[in-house]
């Protein structure tokens, strides 16, 4: 009797099971609230050795080469939350063994993220933030060393309560 019942309803049971699993997977995907913390680095500078073309294809360009005084060069570290959820207790550390880093500004304003701790000692920067919401962006600017290549040596670590952040390679300096 059981065998008969099983053979009658097995197909339907399997179909229902697949449907339930699919629903769970889709719901999980739609309600994925995990953060995604990414660190981007930029070396922003003024290059007076190379020329700027005055013709780009058919277009005429009249670029005025004027160095923006006291604003360049600088080394910028940007921490972003590109995920679908907020991160908590996010801490990030920026340090270099070769380069001697100095803050471009006195101290970055990170109060909006519930700043718990911030230190800058012996060229090592450390900050701990209570919250880091979706779409949050925190920037720290440094006076770069004379040899921009030594920025390749800068070590950045970022970690929150949920996960460890991803650090992208520096833009503007060719590292080996």
């Amino acid at each position, binding site marked *: 009797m059981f065998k008969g019942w099983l053979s009658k309803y097995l197909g339907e049971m399997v179909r229902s099971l697949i449907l339930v699993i699919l629903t769970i997977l889709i719901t999980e995907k739609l309600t994925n609230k995990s953060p995604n913390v990414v660190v981007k680095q930029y070396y922003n500078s003024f290059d007076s050795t190379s020329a700027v073309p005055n013709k780009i294809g*058919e277009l005429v360009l009249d670029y005025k080469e004027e160095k923006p005084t006291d604003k360049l060069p600088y080394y*910028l570290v*940007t921490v972003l939350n*590109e995920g679908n959820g907020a991160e908590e207790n996010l801490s990030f550390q920026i340090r270099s063994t070769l380069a001697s880093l100095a803050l*471009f500004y006195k101290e970055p304003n990170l109060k909006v993220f519930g700043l718990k701790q911030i230190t800058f000692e012996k060229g090592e920067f450390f900050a701990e933030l209570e919250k880091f919401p979706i779409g*949050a*962006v925190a920037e720290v*600017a440094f006076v770069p060393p004379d040899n921009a290549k030594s920025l390749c040596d800068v070590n950045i670590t970022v970690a929150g309560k949920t996960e460890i952040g991803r650090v992208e390679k520096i833009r503007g300096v060719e590292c080996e």
Partner: protein
Amino acid sequence: MRVRCILGIASLLVLLAITTFVHADDCAYRDGGYCVAFIAKETAKKLSIPTETAMWGQSRWNKSLWATDVAMDGTNYLNYYENLWDQMVKNGKATIKDRETTFEEAKKAGGTKIGGVNLVVLAAKTLQHLVDKGALTKEEAQGILNRARSAAQ
């Protein structure tokens, strides 16, 4: 009569000051006499991409959550053009090779380099690419560049 005249001139001066202030404030990033923000906005308009979407890759970026002290931060526009080119590659409006060549040439140019890239050259090269693809006429592209100079004033 004299008072009216003085008042009239004063009003004109105030109006001029307001216009100049509003105009200058419109440009989020300028370099080499060009308002890059203006070129980026006009390019997105021509491609029917909302500027915010192209700028942040996703529309939910919240400006109030920006903790930055860097006054002349052009990195937003480098990200903008990276996203724009990614979208053009995805939509078949450009090849990966086009993207690479454009960024390489913008890296070779001198002047202000944001992440190693001259953004004015990158913006102009993007316009030229759109001319080559027939999305813009040469006159329209040159018009955007010329107006970007006025917008930077």
